[in-house]
């Protein structure tokens, strides 16, 4: 395994904190997500042999309108009703507890809906109580990084909270694990690739963000405290793919891992 490791590059092997289905507590393990193996309790096995649970997370918040491409596409609309002017403060939304989903678990396409938008996102997992942090030291409050698949029913309007479009059961796959920030590449160098049914459909990195996550952490904790386990995530929705029942979405981030979920129709699948 060590030989393969050296050839694959450092970012494929990471020490992570993960949670297996049926086990109450998180454990630490080493994963080689390109090679598809996980080493826990000194035993190496295939990642796919295990059933995964989502990492233990608290409140999960998304920062909207941070994707420069989305911002530019909306620029004209932002000066017209109902928006009238571009936002000055952070535009946040919440993905409540019912939306949290795990690696390889199905996402249910609600009946009457044809397609879901599946936006890749980088999740910052808070490590200690974060209130009024400054941008310079913002990452001190971050424990590590995880992948978030921010699914929603496509919607144009951002005037009202898009609760019915964003907060469906299972609409926020997260994981497969959390990588402590010291164990991986710098935040600013993280990049994501989205595959639908094995075909690469989206390639993005943090240069497309309007502002760096460190700045948002300062802006958000200026008025709301984040607790250990809370997640603040940043997505790239502008060119995010649309998927329907039968599709499999895979989000890869070098230095973190790969989060994969099938989309299933409501009848007969994971739904009732």
């Amino acid at each position, binding site marked *: 395994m060590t030989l393969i490791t050296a050839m694959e590059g450092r970012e494929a092997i990471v020490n992570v904190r993960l949670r297996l289905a049926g086990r109450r507590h998180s454990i630490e393990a080493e994963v080689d997500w390109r090679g598809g193996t996980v080493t826990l309790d000194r035993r190496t096995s295939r990642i796919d042999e295990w059933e995964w649970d989502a990492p233990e997370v608290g409140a999960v*918040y998304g920062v909207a309108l941070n994707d420069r491409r989305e911002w530019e596409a909306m620029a004209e609309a932002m000066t017209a009703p109902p928006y009238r002017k571009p936002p000055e403060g952070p535009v946040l939304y919440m993905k*409540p507890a019912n939306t949290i989903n795990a690696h390889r678990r199905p996402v249910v396409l609600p009946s009457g809906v044809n397609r879901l938008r599946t936006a890749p996102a980088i999740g910052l997992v808070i490590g200690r109580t974060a209130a009024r942090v400054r941008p310079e030291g913002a990452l001190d409050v971050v424990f590590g990084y995880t992948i978030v698949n921010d699914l929603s029913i496509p919607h144009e309007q951002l005037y009202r909270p898009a609760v019915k479009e964003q907060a469906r059961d299972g609409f926020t796959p997260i994981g497969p694990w959390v990588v402590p920030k010291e164990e991986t590449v710098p935040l600013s160098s993280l990049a994501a690739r989205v595959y639908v049914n094995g075909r690469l459909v989206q390639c993005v990195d943090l240069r497309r963000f309007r502002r760096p996550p460190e700045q948002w952490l300062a802006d958000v904790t200026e008025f709301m405290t984040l607790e250990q386990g809370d997640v603040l995530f940043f997505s790239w929705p502008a060119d995010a793919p649309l998927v329907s029942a039968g599709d499999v979405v895979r989000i890869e981030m070098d230095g973190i891992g790969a989060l994969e979920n099938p989309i299933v129709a409501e009848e007969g699948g994971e739904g009732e």
Partner: protein
Amino acid sequence: MKQARVAWNGTVTEAEPLDSGRLLLPDGTIVDEHEVMWLPPVEPRTIVALGLNYADHAGELSFAAPKEPLFFFKGKNTLIGHRGRTVRPAGVDMMHYECELAVVIGRPARRVKAEQAYDYIWGYTIANDYAVRDYLENYYRPNFRVKNRDRTTPLGPWIVSHEEVGDPMALALRTYVNGALVQEGYTGDMIFSIPYLLEYITSFMTLAPGDLILTGTPKGAVNVQPGDEVVAEIERIGRLINYIE
């Protein structure tokens, strides 16, 4: 049945409020209410809050009554207990209280029908869902800087079970600032009733025991200032006291 959550003697415990300002702890100890610090009576994972659910309040804010429930989520960072203090940010022009009936979910609730809604409700408490209107922006409105600020949602003092409340759609709400009545309403005037809301919300998302639905506020939103004592009162539930600083 009434149930509170308090900090007492260096620990957190459930407590049953008795008459005459005393509390009964689970082990039989009786303490005076001034010996405890009141905490929010539940620790919800999910807080759903309704906007514009009373026609008179919608009118007051120059909105037509919505045809579909308008709601948003709140984080646990907003909650504080009875007799807590809420900060009015320096330099703002308009911060107002919102006295709201809060529904506490008792069972996992998914695809609940309105006719069965009360079977899924543990009880009710009072929320005072402050808003700082200076920060309103037209994106995912009401945006988090208005409605999700630390310690801006006093909750309590306790939960009163559904059985003890009876009909939650027939309760008077009143808010007093420094003793003066400033807001008055009636839960029966909600645009969307509690059974309707539970059916609507759980038609697409699952609620868990302890989750909250804040059902909106009637007309009478008035600016508050540091030093004010704000009392949100709901018939058959109690009086939730909060101080502005």
